[in-house]
């Protein structure tokens, strides 16, 4: 049975791994292939700093809150393992800053040690009068995507450097199930007016004295349109750009100025940081994540698509919960085709 995953960002690769782990032994004929025109380090995921943190409000997308929690718990369980370093996974603490009191987020009990900031801590951040402190996780895709790729390669999954033009193209080749993890360009495979780019730009600097993430929020500007500083294992990411509807992947000098000035005002010590790189990418923004099955008729043949895209600026945060949900959808496809009984619960 041939299964094709379109897209090799964090969503595509983790969904591939999750499905392969769960079903390979149940479906001996399973042949899995990944198709993408961009691989690490050129995917959208590679540009992300890698901080696990959902948006402030889940807009009543409760299943997304569950997927976020599943991802956090899954990663937390891997922290003590020897794989953690290779995965690019580590704990990090930090600050969320506001200009006015806000309700606690849906994820306050998912992260570790969530609390409000004390007045003395707020002295560090003039202009901000309210905030949170918590410990969360970093998952750096420049390590995680190669790690996922290695696990998949070991399992015999094949990779193809190819831009897929249509689902039909896959079905015509004999693929029975397509997992659509095409991110921001999913609209090219099937029009989706709810999917829009959320253009971001970041500056990568050398600032190894910064040990905390700092995310500021401006309710008016919207999420990630306010400065943030996120220290990685090697570089620190400065950002604060989120332009809805902008498809331009070129770096903008104006955005550079905005990011640099705002971040240096937030953390004066950054003025001495050496700039290493600049990058722009398009968050695959959507009102909610599209995670569902679609049956497509291809001649007499019934083919299946599992959509898993539209994760905005929280792909890393939600990826494993979504991968497991996609795997459940795959399981129901198998059941219908009577290719496998439902997977036994893992003890």
């Amino acid at each position, binding site marked *: 049975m041939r299964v094709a995953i379109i897209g090799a960002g964090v969503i595509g690769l983790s969904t591939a791994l999750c499905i392969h782990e769960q079903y390979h032994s149940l479906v001996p004929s399973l042949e899995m292939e990944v198709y993408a025109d961009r691989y690490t380090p050129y995917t959208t995921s590679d540009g992300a700093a890698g901080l696990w943190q959902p948006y402030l409000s889940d807009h009543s997308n409760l299943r997304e809150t569950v997927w976020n929690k599943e991802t956090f718990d899954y990663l937390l369980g891997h*922290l*003590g*393992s*020897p794989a*953690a*370093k290779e995965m*690019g996974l*580590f*704990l*990090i*603490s930090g600050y969320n800053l506001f200009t006015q009191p806000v309700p606690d987020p849906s994820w306050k009990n998912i992260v*570790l*040690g969530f*609390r409000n*900031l*004390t007045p*003395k*801590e707020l002295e*560090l951040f003039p202009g901000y009068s309210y905030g949170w*402190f918590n*410990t969360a996780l*970093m998952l750096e895709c420049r390590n995680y995507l190669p790690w996922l790729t290695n696990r998949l390669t070991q399992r015999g999954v094949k990779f193809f450097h190819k831009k897929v033009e249509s689902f039909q193209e896959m079905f015509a080749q004999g693929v029975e199930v397509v997992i659509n993890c095409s991110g921001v360009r999913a609209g090219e495979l099937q029009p989706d007016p709810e999917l829009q780019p959320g253009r971001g730009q970041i500056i990568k600097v050398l*600032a*190894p*004295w*910064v*040990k*905390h993430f700092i995310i500021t929020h401006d309710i008016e500007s919207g999420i990630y349109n306010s400065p943030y500083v996120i*220290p990685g*294992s*090697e570089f620190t990411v400065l950002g604060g750009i989120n332009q809805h509807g902008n498809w331009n992947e070129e770096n903008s000098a104006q955005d550079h100025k905005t990011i640099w000035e705002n971040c240096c005002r937030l953390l*004066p*010590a950054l*003025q*001495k*940081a050496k700039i290493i790189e600049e990058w722009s990418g398009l968050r695959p923004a959507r009102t909610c994540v599209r995670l569902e099955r679609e049956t497509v008729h291809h001649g007499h043949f019934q083919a299946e698509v599992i959509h898993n895209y539209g994760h905005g600026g929280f792909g890393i945060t939600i990826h494993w919960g979504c991968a497991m949900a996609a795997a459940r959808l795959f399981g129901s496809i198998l059941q219908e085709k009577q290719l496998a009984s439902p997977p036994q619960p893992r003890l």
Partner: protein
Amino acid sequence: MAAPKVAVVGAGVIGLSTALCITEACPSCSVTVLSDQFSPNTTSDVAAGMLIPHTYPGTPIHVQKQWFKETFTFLFAISNSPEASEAGIHLVSGWQVFKNTPKEELPFWSDVVLGFRPMSEAELQKFPQHRFGQAFTTLKCDCPPYLLWLEKRLKATGVQMHTRKVTDLWDLHSEYNVVVNCAGIGAHQLVGDEKLFPVRGQVLKVHAPWVKNFIRDGDGLTYVYPGIHRVTLGGTREKGSWSLSPDPGTTKDIFDRCCSLEPSLRGAQDIEVKVGLRPSRRCVRLQREVLSRGGVKLLVVHNYGHGAGGFSVQRGTAKEAARLVGECIATLPGSSSRAKL
């Protein structure tokens, strides 16, 4: 009279901080730092430089708290300025974990550090051998950068620095009006203080840049302190040992203990081993002394014996020492009260 001449013996964190406070309190003084060692070869350079106080059994708690508060405030301001990276001062958050619940659940410094609170159940799950813990945010002074930055600030105000091994304070008597003894463990020989004893500490400095939080076992023996470029793994507290040679068995023991607190350290690279002798005493010797010899007086201010807590009380004790220097200067013949207190 001419500008009072002050010699500060010792160029570790205490000597340099004291010299700085003297220049601030007494701008007309001429200050010279004399030491046989400068950074990166001082005891301070071995230390991680974490602002977590050590409790001195012989000093009232309110005094120790005042010293810590002054130090924290001073360094906090620098950490929040453009100079922070050059000065090597940065904030770091983490956990102090206990295998057995401590007698004192709230240390005297809990309201000086930031965000101090007990650890949650979920946080403690990361430390299966420990039953209780405290989370907080504090400051770290990375050495050598911090000491080099202090030296730079001192030179900018005209302070001279000379490499010179002082074996007898009286040797300085003809050149200086006041001698400030910040010789650390060297005070054992220099002034024959039998109450001063070394507490040997061996540490590892490793490359593990993904470690962003500190972890300290409440017993003070095992700790993981992430610095700017290296993580300091510790340690030992060997009372009375004068050995400065790294011990390989100890290295393995420290590494294993730290890995059990933070398993990802197994992937640490470039392990460097260092040894320092904490200049330990029941209380910091912070006092004036007038030495006499054949009718000649030598005005001395002592500021040594900070043991495991030098970084945490550097500014508070230095300011007190500077105040004592001012008192000394006031007693000099021909002096008006030129020392600003």
